[in-house]
Structure formats: C-alpha cells, structure tokens
C-alpha cells in the first residue's frame, strides 16, 4: 500500500514536450511509473520517447485510460490545464508549476471542491513518491526506500533533508507527498494525513510545515480529533522576520499570525512532537516508533 500514486497510476503529463516536462516525465517512467500519455495542444499525434502526445486531456483519458495528471506547463497555462484534466475525468492532478496567480488558484480550488471529482496536489510542489511503486514529480527517488513512515510537506528540498535523516536512522517511506508552498494548495495537511491514517503500511506520519497561514494549526486540531497514528512535525522559519515572504508565496508571517512558534505550540498542545531541527525529527521518529512497536 501507499497513498495517491502506486502501480495503478496511469500518468499523463501536461506540457510533456517542454524541456522540464520531458526530462521529469521520462525520469518518472524510468522509476517504474506507468506513463501513458502527454498533452501539448498542437502536438497531438507526436510522441515523446514512445509516449503518445495528445491535443487534449479528453483524448488522453479516452485513448490511454490516464487517471493521474502531472502539470508542467508555465504558470499562465496551468489553471486551464488543471481544469481541463478535471473536466476530462482525471482523478488526481499533481501540479508542479510554480508561480500560478493566486486568484487562479482560488478559482481552481473552489471549482474542484464543489465538483468533488478530482483531487489536486500542489501547485508549486515537488510531487508524490511512493517508494518502490511510483514517482510522479521531481522528488529525487534515490534517497528513499519503501517503509512505514508517511511524509507530508509544504517544502521540497527540506523534505529530502528530513527524509535523508530518517533514512540514515533506518526508516523507509510509504509515500512522500509535497503539498506545496503556495497560498491556496489544492490539498492541505489534513487531506493527506487522513489518507495516511487509513493506509495500513503507514505507521508514523511526519509533517513538515513552515511559517504562514494556519494549515499546521488546523492539522493539529484534526490530528487530536481523528488520528490514531503517531505524528512527528517540523516547522521551518522560527527566525523569519514578519512581513517578509520567505521564498514560498505562502511563507509569510503577517502581524502576529503564522509564526513557527505558534504552530509548534498548537501541535505540541495536542500531543504532536515537534523537532526543532531536521536531525531532531529523525530522533523523535526513532523514539516514537520504538515506543509505538512495544
């Protein structure tokens, strides 16, 4: 088991003919992901290293049975592409694209939620890796192996850092899900943690948060009410000054809101251990799973 992507994933990449789109799609296929199609308007009928390219998602779904989309188009085309994928019946849309206008994200989020047909991960995220099963996105799979720790994160490289610390402590991963650092992510911690809670392979959940918004605080409430599995957290940005956007569009402390300290406090108040450094997270994971297995 794993969540979201696995051996049943049938991937279609939007923007497959772009440089990055081609590179990562083929890398995902090399990992073992079933890549069944690509979409680039105007290039229908071509192929990318044997992967058929279509003009529309509807054709990719009808002819190749695609069920998962990876969005690699530039920001100005991304919202349209996500909506097209959903309209075509794609169930899981993973948007890697960074820099999508916030109002586009708002519109996409709300239409997907009201229709209730498709799940969106990202945008501005590294994708999802289920080690040994499928990799959709840009997560460097070499550092991770199969195991029982589920990771969900607002950040990419930070996830690799933490994953690597976990790996060095002997842990593997069920799935690693990057939800992205944008103001309106398609899925948030709660959505993914709920999936890990139901996933039999996952025995520990690690969530990597950062400053900005209140996704971590809401996750804390949710965990207290609905999650039986142990959760270990990390929050980046304890020392971030207010009013400055720290790289991610969503990573900003506004006034007294969104500080790392408040998030850590909210989590700890509900029994979630929070590591102060990536190394500490690995230590907490070891302590917890040791305790959990007795």
């Amino acid at each position, binding site marked *: 088991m794993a969540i979201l992507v696995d051996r049943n994933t049938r991937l279609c990449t939007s923007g497959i003919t772009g440089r990055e789109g081609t590179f990562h799609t083929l890398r995902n296929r090399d990992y073992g992901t079933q890549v069944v199609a690509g979409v680039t308007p105007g290039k229908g009928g071509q192929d990318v290293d044997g992967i058929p390219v279509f003009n529309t998602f509807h054709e990719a779904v009808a002819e190749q049975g695609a069920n998962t989309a990876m969005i690699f188009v530039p920001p100005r085309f991304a919202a349209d592409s996500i909506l097209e994928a959903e309209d075509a019946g794609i169930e899981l849309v993973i948007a890697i694209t960074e820099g999508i206008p916030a*109002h586009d994200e708002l519109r996409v989020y*709300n239409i997907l939620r009201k229709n209730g047909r498709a799940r969106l991960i990202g945008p501005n995220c590294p994708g999802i890796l289920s080690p040994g099963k499928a990799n959709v996105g840009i997560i460097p799979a070499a550092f991770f192996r199969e195991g029982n720790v589920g990771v969900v994160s607002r950040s990419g490289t*930070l996830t690799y850092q933490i994953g*690597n610390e976990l790996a060095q402590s002997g842990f593997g991963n069920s799935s690693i899900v990057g939800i992205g650092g944008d103001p309106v992510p398609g899925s948030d911690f709660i959505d993914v943690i709920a999936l890990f809670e139901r996933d039999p392979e996952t025995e520990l959940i690690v969530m*990597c948060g950062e400053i900005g918004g209140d996704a971590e605080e*809401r996750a804390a409430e949710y965990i207290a009410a609905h999650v039986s599995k142990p959760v270990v957290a990390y929050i980046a940005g304890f020392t971030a000054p207010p009013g400055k956007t720290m790289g*991610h569009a969503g990573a900003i402390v506004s006034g*007294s809101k969104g500080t790392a300290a408040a998030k850590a406090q909210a989590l700890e108040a509900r029994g979630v251990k929070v590591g102060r450094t*990536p*190394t500490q997270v690995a230590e907490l994971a070891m302590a917890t799973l040791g305790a959990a297995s007795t």
Partner: protein
Amino acid sequence: MDLLEYQGKQLFARHGVPVPAGQPARTVQEAVAAAEQIGYPCAVKAQVQIGGRGKLGGIRIARDAAEARAHAEAILGMDIRGLTVYELWIEGASEIAAEYYASVVFDRSAKAPLVMLSTKGGMDIEQVADESPEAIARLHVDPLLGFQDFHGRRLAYEAGVDDDVVRPVGAMLAKLYEAFVAEEATLVEVNPLIITPDRQVKALDAKVTLDGNALYRHPDNAQLRDRSAEDPQEQMAKERGLTYVKLDGNIGILGNGAGLVMSTLDVVKGAGGEPANFLDAGGGSKAEAIAQAVEVILSNQSVEAVLFNIFGGITRCDEVARGLIEAFEQIKPTVPFVVRLDGTNDVEGRELLAQAALPNVYTESTMDAAAARVVELAAGS
C-alpha cells in the same frame, strides 16, 4: 506588490470606488501646482507604505500656496520610520462625519476572499480586532458566486453603519470586491472610509497589495514602483531571478529550496549566529546562477561569513561547486565560506572543491555541523 496610497486610489477610481480628487507630485513645484489646481484646503500626503504617517508629520493640511510649498518642502525627503519620502499626493481636504473601515483580504485559510467592515475606522484595525472583535463584521465570499447585494447589506447591518448609508456603503464594498478580483489583489483596504457631512461615501486612504504572479496580465500595474521601499540588494537579486530577502545579521546564507533555506536560518540562529539574508538559489541551479547569487550575498557589506547549504535533488552538487569556484575567480571574496553539499553528485562536488583549494572555504557533511562552523568563523572574523 504593495502600492502607494495614490496608486491604490487611482486603481480604485478605475473601478468606480469614490475617492477625493488628487494629484501625485515628486517635486515642491509639482506639489504647489497640484494644490493650486485642486484648491484649498488640501492635504499634502507623504507616499510611503507605513502606518501612522499622520502622527509623524507626513500628512499636513495646506490653506494656501505658501503652506502647500512649506509642507511639500518639509515632507519630501523626510525619513518616516526608515523610509524616505520621494513622492507626495495632494488631494482636496475632506470633511468627515464618520470614519469606517473596509477591506477585502485573500483569506488563505478559508480559501475565499474575506470582506470586513467596521464603524471603528481611522484606528489601527489589528488593535480593534484584538480589543473589540465584535466591532468588525466579517463575511467570506464564494469566489465562484462573487459579491452579491445581500453581502453588502448584511455587512452594513452587522457593522451597524448609519441607516441612511447602508446602500452606498454596500455598493462601495461591491466595487472594492470588483477591484480586488479584476486587479488580482491579495489585499484592498480602506481606512478610513469616510462619510462626509452631506452623506457621501469616500475612500480617504487606500492600501492595495497586488499578486506579483499575476502582473503579466496587468501590464499597467506592473509599471507601478515604490522607490521608498526598494532595497538595492533585493533589486539586484530580483533582476537575476533569485529569491532573496535581506536580514539584519552577518552570516550570508545560500541554499536550494525555500523550506531548506528557512530551516538553515533557524539552525544557524540556534547555533548562536545571525543570518544576513535568505537566498533560495532554486532547483536545478547552474553554476552561473550560483556565482551571481554569491555576488548578491556579498554586496551586503555586513556579511562576515557565508554558509552554502545544499541538498541536491534536481540541483547537482557538482554544479554548485563549479558556481562557487567561478564566483571566487570573479569576485575573490575575502570572507570565509562553509559549504555543505549533500545529495545528487555530492562526492563530485566535494572533490571539485578540494581540487580548487579555494582560500577560506571549509566543507562540512551535515547541516548542523556546517551551521556551527560558520557561526564560529563569523565570530572570529
């Protein structure tokens, strides 16, 4: 992107939000000419993005040309909490019967625009929110439906505005919402929204934040500048496509990925150091981008040591090493560098650095050790 008051008011006017007539001015001469055209009394207002301008002398009423000149001379070039005044906004003085507060905020948590209205205008709204939260009427708008007439009525009645202005205040909220959506703002705030003695509704101030990612759809907005808020290092980084935030310390930081860089700042601070900046070199950075990033970091004269913290995924550690070597050739930095390379091609990267034998470059294999080392070096420099 934060707009100056006058830029926000000009944007409001395009969407039918009533604002007092006014003109911008960059020189005393322009200011006096504007005042003469607008008539007296008029307000001479410093254009800087900071609250409490008025109390600090940044807003003055002129009753004649001599006063307009004197105020313009006093305010232009003034320093208001660290920001230099380069521009003025001259507008007709308004009579005020009541001061309200109105805003539309991009509420990330609710994933919907949040519209707020309060009759406690003209005050710090965060203070109002803390002390009497019930004084602020709040309402989320379904972005697929948009702002409806009933939203305006409900906010107006809940906020307790005067009965005779329920309709025009609701109409102004509708127009502010329209501006918020049409211009792709993340914040539109009017404080104070005034009711004049003849019961007109007007925006007496304007605070607008636009989404930088959407500026390609709004070429006119993309031209707007605020010289007072520009930091030379941040400008330089922006031109090179780097994500850079200047901080107050003496340790330059470079990492790949926003989360990892934030984490690096925390770890450095935890080791007793003070970061001089946030710099995300991004994913898949090539040598040239790394060299440019080093230049940006070192253009801050406070930097006494630099930490490279790279966890290679898409980014290849050998490319980072090459970039650092290139930067040393070009800039010949004198401050010490601590380099932590992990992940994709880390062995090759470390090898390249060893071969280059750059002066003052130290490698560490973990983030914690690298942070400890750079703090030590910065303290010793």
